[in-house]
C-alpha cells in the first residue's frame, strides 16, 4: 500500500475540527508545510478510499437536498402535473407566468392567516416551552442519588421517541370528547368537553403536546453543560459565603448561557417551522382557520389542490424568509459574543 505511507494530518488543514488530533500537533507542521502542498494526484491516490466512502451519503444529500432546489422553478409557472408522470417533462412543457403566483399569494387572506397562526404558535412555544427544559435540568442536576436520576431521566426522555401520531392519540384519550377528562366530568354531572376540536384553544393544545413530547428531551443539552462545570467553582463560591441560590445565579446560570443562546438562535432561525406533522394530523379536526400554518398551507394547495405552482411559490417565500432569519439570528448571536451555529 504505497499511498498509506503519506501522512494525512496537517495541523492547519482542518479548522472545523473541534478536537485537534494529538499527533497532528506533536509533529512540527511548519516544516512539512515549507515543502509545499502535495499535488492533487498524489493526494487523490492516497485518499481515494476515504472519498469513496463519503460518496453514497453525499450522492443522497445532493439528490434529495440540492437537486429539488431547481424544482422551485414551478413557483414561476402555471405547472400542470397532468402533462406527464415525469416532473421534468411537465416543467419543460408548463407555461411560465412570471410573478403571478406570488401576487396571488400576497393577496390571499388564507396565506396571511397561515402567517399569523405560525407566528402566534412560535411565540407561544418560545414563552411556554423554552424555559421548561432549563428548569427541569436544574432540578435533575440537583438530585444527587444516581438511581433516582437515571429513572427520572428515562421517564422524561421517553415521549421524545414516540411518533406524533401516537402523542396525538394519547392526548385524544385524555382530553378528547370521549377522553378520560370528559369521562370524569360527566360522572360528576358536568358537561364533557372536547379540547381536541376547539379552535380557540388550539395554540395552547399544540404547545402542551410539544411540552409533553419534547420538554424532557430538551434537558439533555443543559445537563451536558452542567456536568462540565467544575465543582471547585461551587466550593470557592461557598467559601466566599454564597448560599445555594447565589451559587445557582453566579455559577450555574453563566455556565448555561452559551447553550441557551445557541438554542435560542436555532429556534428563532427556525421560527416559521412549527410542528408540521403535528398540526397536519389535527388540521381536519380543528379546521384550517385556527390550525393552518405555512407548511400546511403549502401542503394543502400543492398536494391536495394540485395547484403546484402556487404552493411552491408559498414554500419558496417561506424558505427565503427562513434563510434570512437563520443568518440574522447568527449575526445577533455573534454580536452578543456567543458562538451561534457557525463560527465567524
Amino acid at each position, binding site marked *: 500500500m504505497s499511498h498509506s505511507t503519506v501522512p494525512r494530518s496537517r495541523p492547519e488543514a482542518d479548522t472545523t475540527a473541534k478536537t485537534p488530533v494529538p499527533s497532528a500537533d506533536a509533529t512540527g507542521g511548519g516544516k512539512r508545510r515549507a515543502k509545499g502542498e502535495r499535488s492533487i494526484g498524489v493526494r487523490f491516490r492516497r485518499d481515494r478510499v476515504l472519498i469513496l*466512502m463519503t460518496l453514497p451519503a453525499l450522492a443522497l444529500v445532493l439528490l434529495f437536498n440540492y437537486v429539488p432546489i431547481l424544482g422551485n422553478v414551478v413557483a414561476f409557472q402555471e405547472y400542470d402535473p397532468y402533462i406527464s408522470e415525469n416532473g421534468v417533462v411537465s416543467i419543460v412543457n408548463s407555461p411560465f407566468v412570471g410573478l403571478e403566483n406570488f401576487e396571488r399569494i400576497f393577496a390571499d387572506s388564507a396565506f396571511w392567516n397561515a402567517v399569523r397562526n405560525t407566528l402566534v404558535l412560535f411565540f407561544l412555544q418560545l414563552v411556554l416551552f423554552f424555559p421548561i427544559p432549563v428548569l427541569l435540568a436544574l432540578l435533575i442536576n440537583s438530585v444527587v442519588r444516581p438511581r433516582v436520576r437515571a429513572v427520572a431521566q428515562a421517564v422524561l426522555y421517553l415521549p421524545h421517541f414516540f411518533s406524533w401520531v401516537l402523542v396525538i392519540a394519547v392526548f385524544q384519550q385524555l382530553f378528547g370528547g370521549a377522553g378520560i377528562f370528559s369521562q370524569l366530568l360527566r360522572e360528576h354531572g358536568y358537561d364533557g368537553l372536547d379540547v381536541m376540536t376547539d379552535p380557540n384553544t388550539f395554540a395552547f393544545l399544540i404547545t402542551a403536546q410539544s411540552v409533553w413530547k419534547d420538554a424532557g428531551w430538551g434537558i439533555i443539552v443543559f445537563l451536558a453543560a452542567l456536568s462540565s462545570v467544575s465543582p471547585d467553582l461551587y466550593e470557592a463560591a461557598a467559601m466566599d459565603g454564597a448560599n445555594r441560590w447565589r451559587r445557582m445565579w453566579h455559577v450555574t446560570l453563566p455556565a448555561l448561557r452559551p447553550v441557551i443562546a445557541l438554542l435560542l438562535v436555532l429556534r428563532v432561525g427556525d421560527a416559521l417551522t412549527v410542528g408540521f406533522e403535528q398540526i397536519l394530523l389535527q388540521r381536519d379536526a380543528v379546521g384550517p382557520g385556527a390550525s393552518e400554518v405555512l407548511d400546511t398551507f403549502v401542503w394543502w394547495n400543492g398536494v391536495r389542490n394540485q395547484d403546484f405552482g402556487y404552493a411552491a411559490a408559498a414554500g419558496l417565500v417561506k424558505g427565503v424568509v427562513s434563510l434570512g432569519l437563520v443568518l440574522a439570528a447568527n449575526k445577533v448571536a455573534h454580536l452578543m459574543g456567543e458562538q451561534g451555529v457557525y463560527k465567524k
Partner: protein
Amino acid sequence: MTAVLDEPGAAPARRDRRWSAPPRPVWEEKPTPAGAAGKGLVLVLACLAILFPLWIVVVTSLSSRGTIDEAGGLVMVPRDITFVAYEELLSGGQVTRAAVISVLVTLVGTLFSMTVSVLCAYGLSRSGSLGHRWFLLMLLATMFFSAGLIPTYLLVQTLGLTDSYLALILPSAVSVFNILVLRGFFMGISQELIDSARIDGAGDFRILWQIVMPLSRAVLAVITLFYAVGYWSAWFNASLYLNDQDMMPLQNVMIQLVQKQEAPVGLGQAIKTGELSGLAVQMAVMVMALLPVAVLSPFVQKHFRKGMLTGAVKG
C-alpha cells in the same frame, strides 16, 4: 456520614450505593425538608404526567368488553386481564400486515442509513484528506435551507419512487446531524492508533471496521436508535407517496383507527356483535406502536450524553 448514622443497623458496606446519595461536600448546606419535598413532588408529578396516560392506554387495551362498558370508556384500574384485542389484531389482516411492513421498513432503512452515514462520517473524519472540507461544507449548508415540500414531491415522483417502499427510505435516509455527531466521535479517536494500524497494513475499511467502530459503540447505539425511531415513527411520506392502502405502515393505520375512529378491516363485525371492544382494539394498536420504542430506548439511554456531548452541543 449522616446517611450511615441514620440507620445504625445497616452495615455500610452492604448498602446499595446507586440508591443512596454520595457523601455531601463539607461546604454544602443540608437541604431543607421543604426544599427536598418540593423537588421530589415536582419530579414525581412530571413523571406521572408522562406515565399516567400510558398506563390508561395499556390497561384499556388489556381489558375485556365488560370492564370497558362498566368504566364508561377508558379503564384506570385493571380488573380482568385479557389479550383478546391483541390476538384479533395479530391473527392476520390489516394491522398485522401494517406491523410487519413497519418492522421491515425500519430494519432495512436503519441498516442502510447506518451504513451510508458511518462510511461518510469516517471518510470525513481524517483531517487533511483531499476534498473533505468541501464535502463537509456541502453537508453543513443543508442545515440552513430546505428545498421545500413541493419540489421534493415532484422529484420523488420523477424518480418513479411513488408506490414503492424506496420512497419511505431514500428521501430520509441521510441525516446530516447524525453524520456530524458520528464524525465528531470518530475524530476523537487517537490518531496514533489509526496510524499504527496503517503501518501494519490495514486499509481504511479495515481500520473503520476493526478499530474505529468497536471504539464507538456508544455513539453507534445512539445514532442507530435515532434512525430506527425515525423510520418507525414516519407516516407523512407514506401518506404522500403510497396510494395503495394495503401498503401502509403501522402509523398510518393508527391514524385511521384511532384518530378517525374507523374499525380495522376484517374486525368490524366482531366489534359490532359485541365480542370485542373497539376501544380496546384502538388502545392495542397504540401499545404496538409504543412498545418497541419504550423497551429499547432506556437501554441506549446511558449513552445519550456521551454520544451527544461530542457532537451535538458543539454542532
